[in-house]
């Protein structure tokens, strides 16, 4: 290759790389922009939020909103509740989903397709129609204000997606692996535990993320509002909705944004932790052994 051509290729490569990074920056900005707006708003004091023209950087940073939230025992307890409930939901959902998905994808049971579709059923209805009957149920058995009241419906509504995802993933694992293991005398459960699961980290981690930060765990509002009536039993989304200004019409913007930012932290931590698992499970080469 001539020197000019080599130079041209090098320049072209540099252009491609810079274009790529520009794209990345754009993607990040696109996803973060409203959130950044929330962060900025949480540091402003009340008047600046409504100023025209729009102030992008607060003239004086005010940590009042954060101080108020962190020193509030109720908010901290709500935070804790959300974490416990979301973790429990994620855990139980993954357990049941993995078992069901394994069964659906490997074992030849009758009416497999029908069962698959049945599992989807709960998703095809608007959440609100479950509200009153579930409330009756929880109230009758005194589960109101207890974590179980929320974990049960959350697991129910998260199951369909989790099962579909895990089942789809199990499809991609070659059957030869299990056939070999069965010839070696492994039982189904052992195969699941020792062979399939370790290979499934990408899917498990992805499911975990989707469940935890999804509409039926950390961020769920409707059931959390109805089933938890005591201040100390509430979860974060409801706590944010209860942040009020001095009158019924006011919206304490700063504080709500601050609460949102705080509420995002556990989610970010969770995602970062599980992301590593997704990447760690990447070495598909291990399969060819």
């Amino acid at each position, binding site marked *: 290759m001539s020197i000019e051509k080599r130079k041209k290729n090098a320049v072209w490569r540099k252009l491609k790389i810079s274009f790529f990074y520009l794209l990345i920056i754009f993607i990040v900005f696109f996803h973060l922009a409203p959130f950044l707006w929330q962060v900025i708003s949480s540091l402003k004091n009340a008047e600046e939020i409504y100023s025209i023209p729009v102030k992008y950087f607060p003239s004086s940073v005010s940590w009042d909103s954060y101080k108020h939230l962190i020193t509030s025992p109720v908010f901290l307890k709500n935070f804790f509740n959300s974490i416990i409930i979301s973790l429990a939901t994620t855990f139980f959902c993954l357990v049941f989903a993995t078992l069901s998905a394994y069964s659906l994808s490997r074992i030849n049971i009758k009416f497999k397709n029908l069962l698959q579709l049945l599992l989807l059923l709960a998703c095809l209805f608007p959440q609100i*129609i479950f509200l009153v009957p579930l409330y009756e149920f929880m109230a009758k058995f005194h589960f109101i204000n207890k974590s179980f009241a929320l974990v049960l419906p959350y697991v129910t509504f998260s199951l369909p997606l989790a099962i579909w995802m895990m089942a789809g993933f199990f499809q991609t694992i070659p059957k030869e692996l299990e056939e070999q293991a069965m010839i070696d005398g492994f039982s189904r459960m052992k195969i699941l535990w020792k062979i399939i699961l370790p290979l499934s980290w990408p899917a498990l981690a992805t499911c975990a993320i989707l469940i935890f930060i999804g509409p039926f765990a950390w961020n769920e509002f409707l059931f959390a509002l109805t089933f938890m009536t005591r201040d100390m039993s509430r979860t974060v989304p409801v706590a944010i909705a209860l942040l009020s200004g001095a009158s019924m019409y006011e919206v304490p913007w700063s504080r709500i944004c601050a609460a949102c930012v705080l509420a995002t932290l556990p989610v970010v931590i969770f995602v970062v932790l599980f992301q590593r698992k997704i990447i760690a499970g990447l070495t598909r080469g291990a399969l060819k052994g």
Partner: protein
Amino acid sequence: MSGKDISEQKFGLFLILPSLIILGVVALYPLFRNLLLSFMGSDGQFAGLHNFLLLLQDGRFKKSFLNTLLISGISVPIQLSLGLFFAVVLHKKFLGREVVRTAVFLPWALPTAIIAVTWKWIFNDFYGVFNDLLLRLNLINEPLAWLGRPNLAFFCIIFAEVWKCTPFVVVILLAGLQSIPSDLYEAISVDGANAWQNFKLITLPLLKPALLVALIFRSIQTFGIFDSIWILTGGGPGGSTESVSLYIYDTVFRYLKFNYGATLVVFNFVISLTFVLIVYYMFATRRQFEY
């Protein structure tokens, strides 16, 4: 069937049992109750198909149904394509990938209700950032009432929905991309395949299961869109962004017309189910779920 097969069957069912029990306990009773209600009149007497006939004449329902179809029909393909694009980009190795990925998950991670209020503020005609930026960039001459005009409001809703839900697609597709063995790409690069052919011949076909999951679940979820519309426009302007879920909520919780509300739910369900069945049988390869 051999004895081994039968015990396999039993074992298989046993594994699924917990999920079925949970779904049964939580979902079955409300669903049956709902079905019953839809066939009864407000006086508690059996009314046959009366409620359904009312539904067919209900102009407001037709409008909300159309709105929902439009919102889903436009935003879901955008979410899928955008999600695919982002997933492919994020699948490559580059500096700071982990940070970028975490950032990309963020919209999905924020509570819908709160982020909707943020959008409402962003689209505000006096104080909104959107108008401010557009004015500064000289793209418009005077502030637009984004949430105040039907077409613009529609755009805002779709924009907010795409922003919030594309990460969901990205996450699922990333997992799918992860499970494509890299040696497949090595194999065809020997034959001199370029990036586009990689994508077309290997990536896309093998992503089909993941795409299917994303398509079905996103469609179902978008069809039930409620929170963001409630906060952004309340169904306006002039009822032009009202979704079916909003109408059901109003009918049940504000008008206290339980029977008719149940009818709306049943109708909605039939439509969603039909859609899912069609998509499922069209796109699912025979290879799926066969032993």
